């Protein structure tokens, strides 16, 4: 039935039953999915991801800086709980951050998977037919050659085939050739995006099955990888204590060397933790040197040297000479530099009352105007300054205490002044409370133990992403077309040869060569086209019979 109205601009929808006429839930989902997988939304999500990471770098985060978080609470008492509520102290584990990257990856998957199918499909289909009017392509050239059309086309096919183009020749007599190249670009693009997904999965793998632990060990001591003996233990979601690798490590010795002259006097030059370890109870003992940048690898777990310090050795005796404390006590380097270190000694089993000491260990001591300071980090002239306390340490009940701090509530100072001790010296405490001897010092090393099953996959996917990226940037998808016509009266009009022009109707043929790049946002195809054109022409001239046909 003829319709005199102008053609509608929008396609009329097919007739649908009334029950399906509304926009149902599935349709809303479909609309949402289309939106999610659009480039625009991907762009917005990328911006949100970048923006969301900013507070994670500015505010102290619970994962690595708990002390900073506590400090923030103290200095911003009103703001801190609100920020906590928004997840700002654990940005990268917060649900809203997860929502952003999960949506981004859903968008990624929704884009990439159909394109993978399309790429696989296009690998099977041939390039399209050559257009009739090659002169209208973004890049085109034409020239004459003495070869007849069929041989000219064969030469063109040889040249283009030699460059790796995929060819399609005309079945009928119209003498054209299509060539396409550069499928690897899309493959690289897909590889890159899928590799990013792989990186995310690897990170999740580590979060589920990996763990991290810290241990401070004094030289001469040993420890095993059990939860009760580690100082800190951060298991992944599915990790239990039974999953810990059962190794034992003994810190035979720790050495640190420092620069002794020049502008960097006192800067650390090298650290070395010499260890003996066994991978499992009863296993063969091996030795290794753990240094910064050189972790120990044992049983799929890596042990890193993170820090070090001094542990002065004290012996505390009661008034009757009974030894109630004897051991190396790790002290922690203070911010003042040169390894001036602070720590406490707790003697809970002294009688008549418990004893506590707050001390400063100075590796190379000088007295500057009555103040004790360290001028060099090596223990060339070690001195300890102690303040003694007696009373109740608070260790007999209640919550666990820090080993680096005294609970002063039940303690009172035994002597008014701090007491200085050189190695070997003893301080007899007033009131018959006992005596403390500064025997000497040891060094301690702090080790971090990590197990991350997602580490190697993340690396491999990272390299895949990089490879895909390079491929997608370096390879261009491009098509070139060749039409060869006999030079007839209408040959100059640029349209394809009509069925009437027979090959060989004149000497030689006119070669029209054109091309375009599918995604050439950066340009550069022009140079390739020009060189291809020149090469084609040269090949034709080379093959041409001896007589010249003029220009």
């Amino acid at each position, binding site marked *: 039935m003829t319709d005199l109205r102008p053609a509608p601009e929008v396609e009329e929808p097919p007739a649908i039953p009334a029950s399906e006429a509304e926009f149902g839930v599935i349709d809303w989902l479909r609309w949402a999915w289309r939106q999610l997988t659009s480039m625009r939304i991907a762009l917005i999500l990328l911006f949100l991801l970048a923006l969301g990471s900013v507070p994670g770098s500015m505010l102290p985060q619970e994962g690595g800086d708990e002390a900073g978080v506590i400090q923030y609470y103290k200095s911003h008492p009103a703001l801190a709980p609100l920020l906590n509520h928004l997840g700002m102290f654990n940005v990268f584990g917060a649900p809203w951050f997860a929502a952003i990257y999960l949506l981004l990856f859903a968008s990624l998957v929704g884009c990439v998977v159909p394109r993978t199918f399309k790429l696989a499909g296009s690998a099977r289909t041939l390039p399209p037919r050559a257009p009739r009017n090659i002169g209208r392509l973004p*890049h085109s050239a034409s020239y004459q050659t003495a070869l007849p059309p069929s041989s000219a086309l064969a030469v063109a096919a040889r040249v283009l085939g030699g460059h790796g183009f995929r060819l399609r020749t005309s079945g009928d007599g119209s003498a054209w050739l299509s060539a396409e190249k550069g499928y690897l670009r899309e493959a690289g693009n897909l590889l890159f995006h899928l590799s990013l997904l792989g990186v995310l999965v690897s990170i999740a793998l580590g979060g589920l099955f990996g763990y991290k632990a810290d241990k401070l060990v004094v030289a001469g001591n040993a420890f095993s990888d059990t939860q009760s003996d580690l100082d800190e233990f951060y298991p992944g979601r599915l990790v239990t204590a039974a999953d810990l690798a059962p190794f034992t490590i003994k810190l035979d010795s720790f050495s640190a060397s420092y620069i002794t002259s*020049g502008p960097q006097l006192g800067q650390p030059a090298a650290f070395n933790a010499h260890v003996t370890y066994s991978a499992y109870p009863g296993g063969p003992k091996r030795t290794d040197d753990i240094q910064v940048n050189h972790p120990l690898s044992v049983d799929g777990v890596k042990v890193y040297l993170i820090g070090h310090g001094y542990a002065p050795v004290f012996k505390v005796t009661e008034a009757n000479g009974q030894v109630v404390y004897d051991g190396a006590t790790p002290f922690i380097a203070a911010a003042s530099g040169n390894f001036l270190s602070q720590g406490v000694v707790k003697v809970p089993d002294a009688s008549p009352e418990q004893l506590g000491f707050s001390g400063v260990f100075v590796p190379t001591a000088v007295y500057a105007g009555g103040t004790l300071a360290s001028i060099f980090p090596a223990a060339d002239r070690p001195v300890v300054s102690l303040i003694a306390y007696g009373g109740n340490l608070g260790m007999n009940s209640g919550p666990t205490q820090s080993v680096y701090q005294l609970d002063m509530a039940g303690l009172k100072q035994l002597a008014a002044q701090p007491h200085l001790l050189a190695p070997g010296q003893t301080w007899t405490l007033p009131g018959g409370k006992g005596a403390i001897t500064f025997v000497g010092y040891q060094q301690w090393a702090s080790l971090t133990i990590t197990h991350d099953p997602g580490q190697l996959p993340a690396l491999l996917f990272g390299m895949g992403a990089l490879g895909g990226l390079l491929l997608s940037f370096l390879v261009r998808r491009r098509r070139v077309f060749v039409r060869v016509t006999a030079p007839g009266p209408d040959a100059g009009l640029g349209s394809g040869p009509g069925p009437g022009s027979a090959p060989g109707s004149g000497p030689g043929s006119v070669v029209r060569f054109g091309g375009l790049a599918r995604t050439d946002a950066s340009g550069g195809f022009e140079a390739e086209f020009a060189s291809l054109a020149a090469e084609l022409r040269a090949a034709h001239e080379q093959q041409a019979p001896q007589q010249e046909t003029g220009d």
Partner: protein
Amino acid sequence: MPNVALGHVSNDFMIAALIIYSLAVLAFAGDFAFGRPKRSAVTSRAQVPERADALAAVGASATASGVSGSAVSGTSGVPAASAVSGVSGAVVSGAGAGGSVPDSMPPVALPPLRAILAAGEWVRAGMALSTAGVLAHALAVITRGFAVHRAPWGNMYEFVTALTCFAAIFFLWVMIRYRAWALGVFVIGAVVVVLGLAETLIYTAAGNLVPALQSYWLSIHVTAMTVSTGVFFVAAVLGVVYLAVDHHNRRVAAGKAQPGNGIIARLPSLEQLDRLAYRTVVFGFPVWTFGVIAGAIWADEAWGRYWGWDPVETWAFITWVVYAAFLHARATAGWRGRRAHYVQLLGFATLSFNILVVQVFITGLHSYAGVG
């Protein structure tokens, strides 16, 4: 022990580079003021005939020798049709109707040296001085490396001097390859400013690294970051130039300014600038990606985890995401052109913030800037 004498030699070369670069900037500016009054030829190596008849006007002899100086300078190079190269396979109209000339070959452009010589004495001077400046700069960086017995990018001063060196080398190549000397004023000028600030504000004498940094991964990771920062630096300058030209063009279109014969008229077209900036980012982005991966490998060796959201790591990630957004923006309708370059400049802003603020002021595992 650092070699103090070599450290002084390195510093001397750095000052020399600064002076030579400044003279190069003056030469390029001189080209604007006094150079040949033709549009500067930023072209790719092969010219595409915008119209077959235009080429015919140039002369059929274009195909005989394949080389013609005037052919290079006559046309502006990029046909409008290539802007829609995203159309797949369909015949595109644009390159002139039915070329009636049987022989039309895309002409081959001048080799770079001849193009420079043909561009006038100011450009010649500018290019020669830029090359000399790059040599001096490179020597400064290399002697610094010998002075400290390691790769010379271990603290902030070394990092900035090295990245500007990579930026200058990269841009020198761009100028030669793409005949982009019209942009020399801006990029080399920016290098002068940054290098000068580095010398005056954050100079540190040659010294050793703390043990935490003694790893061959230092060379790999920081090298990649230095190179890519240098490249992004160039892209940022090009982005600023793009925005300036675009702003001028819009003012002309609104009738508020004259399309004069001034500096802007001598610059490459908006499209060419856009492409140049895009290609620069395309070069830098994989290097940055590689640098982040290498950094993760180094972090795992040194700190026991390959990613820990350390502030510097986080900002490197943010930079990566923003540059990724730039690459996506160019494929999104409505975001090409001006907006995309805002994104690119935002990316460089995050990069600069990372170097200047995060590494210096926010304590984390990365605080090796060695400043002050």
